[in-house]
Structure formats: C-alpha cells, structure tokens
C-alpha cells in the first residue's frame, strides 16, 4: 500500500502562492495521485489528480517528478477561504476507490 507523508500544518498570507509537498515513496506503477480539500463540517472535495509531470486546472497545479515518489500541490494566490485541510492520496493498484487518507495538511491563510 502506498503511504503518504505530508506536513501537518502550514500558515500562509492572503495573495501568496502555497506549495504543499507530499511524499509517497512506495507508489505503484498504476497508482494515481489525487488531492482533496476538506472544510470543517464538510466532506472532502476533489481538487486535482495526476499521474506524472504537471497538471493544471482552474483551482491548482500538481507537479509530479519523473520518479513519482513525491508530488507538490500548488495553490496560486490563496485567500482566506482556502483555509482547509488538504489530503494527498495515492490509489491502490487494485483499482477500487479505496483511498487511504493520511493526516492531511492543515493550511491556515492569514489576512
């Protein structure tokens, strides 16, 4: 099972770019890397997903090096509303959506 390691918490200021790095040394060939965001009293919400190199959508960018043993979620110009817990998830080879949630990174955006 691929296990992820990410910082427990981060602080940032409004307008800054935030980069959250996740380590997944045991990632398997068929595993995808997915990031979820969770606000208090809500369920996790999909942000972005990738397999290799770089993926960008309207919310974030995901950078994955060639060895895929880590990934970095980049949030451009964060606002107070981006304060949340961010989870880095790596899928199981079996293909079922059996996510393994780690502790996540608690991002706090300050004014």
């Amino acid at each position, binding site marked *: 099972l691929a296990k992820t390691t990410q910082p427990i918490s981060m602080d940032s200021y409004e307008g800054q770019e935030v980069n959250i790095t996740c380590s997944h040394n045991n990632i398997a060939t068929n595993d995808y890397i997915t990031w979820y965001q969770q606000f208090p009293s809500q369920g996790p919400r*999909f942000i972005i997903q990738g397999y290799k190199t770089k993926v960008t959508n309207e919310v974030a960018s995901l950078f994955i090096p060639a060895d895929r043993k880590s990934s970095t979620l980049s949030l451009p110009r964060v606002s107070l509303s981006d304060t949340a817990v961010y989870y880095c998830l790596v899928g199981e080879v079996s293909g079922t*959506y*059996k996510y393994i949630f780690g502790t996540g990174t608690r991002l706090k955006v300050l004014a």
Partner: protein
Amino acid sequence: EAGVTQFPSHSVIEKGQTVTLRCDPISGHDNLYWYRRVMGKEIKFLLHFVKESKQDESGMPNNRFLAERTGGTYSTLKVQPAELEDSGVYFCASSQGQGMNTEAFFGQGTRLTVV
C-alpha cells in the same frame, strides 16, 4: 445536479441503541463508498458497493455494522448495537467509474455521537 446527500447530518444515540445512516449517491453513479473518521483519527475506508453488490468490505470494523444498497441506488449503514467507540463522522462517496483515475464525490457526512 444534486451531489451526494447524507441523512441525518447529526445523530445522538445511547450505547446499545441502533442507528441507520443513509446515503444518496449522485444519480448514475454505480460506485458507492462509506468512510468514517473517529475522534482524533484519520478518515478510514469502510466498504465499496458496485451497484447493489459489495465489492470490498475489508474496512468494516465488526459485525455490528451492516451496509446495504438494495436496488443499487441509495445505501444504508446500520450500527447495531452502537458502542461509544463508534462515535465519529461517517462519510459517503460515489463515483461513476472505478479506479483511481475517476473522481469521487463525498457527502457532507453524518456526525454520530454515542453516549
């Protein structure tokens, strides 16, 4: 389009009682998942339905938990009898396809408190 909905949002029951949680997935999503987070712990997978069939129930903690998805639409998760350690937030998610290259949509969760 409605998202994944869960009912109730909160439930407080006494130890030994029975509680049934309900999840309505997004229409057309064959895959339905249950997760839970007990106090201070990480979100843990409980089980996975494909339509009405249990694909993987390896995360179910014990036989006090029973999940059903009759007709392949909504799902229920029954806890009988409830114990104090069952307190936590129970999340349901659904996805159109299987595999990690599809997006799972989570509900807001049901907060269960056993007293």
